[in-house]
């Protein structure tokens, strides 16, 4: 019966390998955007849709500044770069040359509707019945140096209102100057020329990232070879993502390799044999194989962070193998069946509690964490199945060994908690831990800032800061989302918003709204009336006489009105396609906000306008991480509660508490002690604690399940388990991916504490068999 199950399992694994090979050839999607780990933010699907769209627009933008001491060289290199980008087929839009014709197209589109288009200042003058101010302005333009007005212009726009309207449009203003048809900025001796592009692919899709990264390093390399003095700055989500993905892929392989190598080396040293290594490797590989396929089947893709965590979590299956192998040192278990029988109760309870721990991850509404949970649940299950089904057969003839030095060493850990002579040491340890934790609790701080979670690549951050300094603009993902029944309703709402924002200069650098480019029809009609009644009627004749204009005036409004659809979306107006975020049947615009200094105040000032919502992508994400950090702590409590009935059923209600106590202490002490090392408490630390709890409970369960002569043997297995866990998660603490680093550091400290306190869950009977004397 058991034999047949082993064969079936073999068949399943072979089928799994074949399936994976098949999937591999058709391409597997590896995700690396940390935000893909996040849940949909809210139930408002339309708003979510819009935010996704905007996030997408922001994430696709890349900006280069090509600098050289020689402006001509900088310009030539910039044009070469944009030509290469244009030919690469990897971008959808490119700005390097200023499109002169775009300005003409823009003017032509506006021209027929000029009478209804007023700058804010002009409109205010007319409202105040101060038409004279506009007459004076026109005169100063006519008489001023280098005047551009001529008879033709005066005939069609006698008060030059359209040029004034154009000048007031919120076109991108920055330190960049439009020069020789390119945007450039001078900084010291360097001249930087800007090249900006929109990617045609998903900045976070690994394959696209890699292709774009390769293309760019080739192109930039060629440029630099040509002109060694070039200084090329770049910024864009794709570079962070590329760096991040590279990083976590490298780390996955390095951490995975070192973790496995160290674990196997440990086993080899302790057991002087290859068989546990081979068997351990088989168990882990079977687990990872099944987990990978299972996750792919469930989610259709795998996130690199899920892969990283998942592989590490499956390595926990080594813990259970170790329980079995350490029975080699137990003279009371002569054959594989006996060994398995002896460790099975502890392993069964351990696996059950661990699975409970991982299952609570499933309850987190984070797609990424669900991936981690599914990956580790399947992997762990498969690993354990491999141990139970295959080990007895593969391990048939192993003779029992005499006890060795490692067993005596392990015995000392029991003595630390059970030897009456070591009471003072115990108290010392407890006091030391308490002092460390209290000291650390003063430094404990939470950190949910999403910008800290994505990448620690300082070079890219410096380049971004430099680009922002040189261009004088920092694209912050802050805007107002405006929704309404139709486009005209949106424009009217925006005009209400604009009147508020015009008076919010204390907390706002500027704003860009569709209604500024295409006023609502109602506004245009009102403007026309103002111009007719308060400018043309009282002033036109006198003004024309003053300047001596003798021609005709053709200044009559057309039948229709300007609508956004009339405007071209090229050149400076390409901005408009960002502002319109409608997805049928939901008309929606955004109002971009620049340099918001007080977000909550701004939110308050527009809060009462229906259909308007302040959105701050960075803050929203950060708030979300905060919510889920608290959520994770809830999960932690929940998994403790779920484990307790099982432990209580097996060990009695008080016994169950004793088994949980060491892990609960570890969970409580790990964050403040980590804080001593400067580790802030994030969502990822909280998730690590969930695992500290389930792994720690395993240790206590093993300690509780063993007795008498088996105690040192069990402790050896726990020590090896803790060591291998620390080896793998200790590595994570050195990760440069902040989230992984936070997770690793907490695991490192938490597991060490759980191991330290685990013997407290034992039977407390010291010296049944004097193995190691202290």
């Amino acid at each position, binding site marked *: 019966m058991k034999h047949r199950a082993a064969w079936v399992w073999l068949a399943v694994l072979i089928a799994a390998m074949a399936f994976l090979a098949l999937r591999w050839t058709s391409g597997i999607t590896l995700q690396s955007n940390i935000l893909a780990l996040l849940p949909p933010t809210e139930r408002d699907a339309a708003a979510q849709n819009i935010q996704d769209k905007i996030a997408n627009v922001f994430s696709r933008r890349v900006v280069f500044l090509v600098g050289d001491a020689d402006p001509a060289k900088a310009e030539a290199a910039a044009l070469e770069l944009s030509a290469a980008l244009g030919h690469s087929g990897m971008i959808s839009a490119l700005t390097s040359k*200023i499109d*002169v014709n775009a*300005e*003409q197209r823009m*003017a*032509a589109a506006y*021209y027929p509707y000029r009478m209804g288009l007023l700058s804010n200042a002009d409109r205010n003058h007319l409202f105040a019945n101060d038409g004279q101010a506009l007459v*004076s*302005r026109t*005169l*100063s*333009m*006519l*008489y*001023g*140096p*280098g*005047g*551009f*007005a*001529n*008879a*033709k212009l*005066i*005939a069609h726009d006698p008060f030059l209102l*359209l*040029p004034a309207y*154009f*000048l007031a*449009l919120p*076109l*991108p*203003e*920055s*330190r*960049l*100057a*439009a*020069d*020789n*048809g390119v*945007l*450039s900025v*001078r900084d010291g001796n360097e001249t930087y020329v800007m090249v900006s592009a929109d990617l045609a692919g998903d900045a976070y899709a690994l394959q696209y990232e890699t292709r774009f990264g390769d293309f760019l390093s080739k192109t930039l390399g060629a440029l630099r070879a040509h002109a060694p003095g070039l200084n090329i700055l770049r910024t864009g989500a794709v570079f962070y993502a590329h760096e991040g993905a590279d990083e976590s892929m490298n780390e996955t392989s390095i951490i995975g390799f070192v973790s496995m190598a160290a674990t196997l080396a440990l086993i080899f040293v302790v057991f002087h044999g290859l068989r546990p290594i081979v068997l351990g490797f088989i168990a882990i590989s079977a687990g990872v194989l099944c987990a990978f396929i299972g996750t792919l089947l469930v989610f259709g893709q795998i996130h690199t962070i899920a892969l990283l965590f998942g592989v590490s979590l499956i390595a926990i299956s080594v813990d259970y193998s170790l329980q079995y192998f350490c029975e080699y040192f137990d003279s009371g278990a002569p054959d594989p069946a006996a060994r398995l029988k002896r460790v099975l109760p502890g392993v069964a309870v351990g696996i059950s509690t661990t699975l409970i721990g991982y299952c609570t991850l499933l309850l987190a509404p984070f797609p990424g964490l669900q991936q981690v949970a599914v990956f580790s649940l399947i992997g762990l299950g498969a690993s354990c199945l491999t141990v139970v089904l295959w080990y007895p057969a593969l391990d048939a003839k192993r003779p029992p060994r005499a006890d060795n030095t490692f067993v005596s060493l392990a015995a000392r850990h029991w003595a630390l908690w059970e030897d009456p002579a070591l009471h003072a040491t115990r108290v010392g340890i407890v006091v030391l831990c308490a002092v460390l934790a209290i000291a650390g609790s003063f430094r404990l701080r939470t950190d949910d800032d999403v910008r800290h979670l994505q990448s620690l690549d300082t070079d890219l951050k410096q380049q971004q800061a430099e680009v922002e300094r040189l261009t004088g603009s920092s694209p912050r993902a802050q805007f107002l989302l405006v929704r309404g029944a139709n486009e005209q309703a949106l424009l009217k709402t925006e005009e209400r918003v604009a009147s508020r924002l015009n008076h919010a200069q204390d907390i706002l650098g500027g704003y860009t709204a569709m209604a500024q480019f295409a006023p609502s029809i109602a506004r245009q009609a009102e403007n026309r009336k103002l111009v007719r009644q308060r400018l043309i009627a009282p002033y036109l004749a006198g003004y024309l006489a003053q*300047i*001596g*204009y*003798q*021609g005709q005036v053709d200044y009559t409004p057309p039948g229709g009105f300007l609508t956004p659809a009339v405007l071209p979306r090229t050149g400076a107006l390409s901005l408009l396609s960002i502002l319109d975020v409608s997805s049928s049947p939901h008309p929606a615009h955004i109002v971009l906000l620049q340099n918001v200094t007080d977000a909550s105040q701004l939110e308050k000032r527009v809060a009462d306008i229906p259909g308007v919502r302040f959105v701050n992508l960075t803050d929203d994400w950060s708030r979300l991480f905060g919510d889920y950090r608290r959520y994770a702590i809830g999960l932690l409590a929940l998994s403790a509660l779920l484990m307790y009935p099982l432990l209580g059923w097996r060990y009695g209600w008080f016994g169950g508490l004793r088994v949980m106590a060491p892990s609960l202490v570890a969970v409580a002490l790990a964050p403040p002690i980590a804080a001593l090392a400067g580790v802030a408490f994030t969502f990822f630390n909280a998730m690590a604690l969930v695992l500290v709890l389930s792994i720690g409970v395993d240790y206590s369960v093993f300690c509780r399940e063993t007795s008498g002569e088996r105690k040192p043997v069990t402790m050896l297995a726990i020590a090896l388990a803790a060591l291998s866990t620390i080896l793998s998660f200790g590595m994570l603490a050195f990760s440069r991916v902040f989230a992984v680093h936070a997770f690793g550091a907490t695991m490192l400290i938490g597991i060490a504490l759980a191991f330290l306190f685990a013997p407290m869950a034992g039977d407390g009977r010291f010296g049944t068999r004097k193995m190691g004397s202290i």
Partner: protein
Amino acid sequence: MRFGAAISLRLAIIVSFLLLAATLDLARAADSVPQTLKSGEILRGRFIQDRRLAGFAKPLRTEGTFVLAPGRGLIWRAVKPFQNTTVITPQGILGQTNGQETMRLPAARMPGLAHLYDVLGGALSGDAAPLEQTFAVRRSEVAGGWQMFLTPLHPDNPTMSQIKSLAVAGHRFVETIEVDKDGGDVDRLSFLDQSVSATPLTADEKSLLGTLNK
């Protein structure tokens, strides 16, 4: 029908050439010791601008004063027919009427401005190359001074779109500039009572030149 950029362009071009020419003669005039405006030196004077526009009964005449501080900018103050001040610096252009700001154009809105500053800067340091890359230059000596006739090398360039030619005449300083524009429009600028001094800018002038940095 180009507005936003066009406004500033014309401004920049004509005024820059005033500045340029004001110093060019120092290097070119046959009978004067070559000298340039040294750092810290300031050129002041009066101007009369006659703008002849087709379809207008009479020229639009403006009179006023100007202050040129090399490297910092130009203040162009019209007194007649009404008070109006225009300030041009590498950061952009500013218009004021009776102390009220009527126009503000940062350099980012003005394609070509920085190039014109290159032309000007080159001329100030005796380097005519940037000028000759932009215009075909014809110089001639005349009785009591010199003349220059400039025609855009690239008339298709939008920066030059309305300018057909510039005629500059002067002796120690530029005395007249005539700008021929499309449609028969002509700007004629005369400069009077010019003097170079090392007197520092007044507080008022400094504040005007600094306004665009804010």
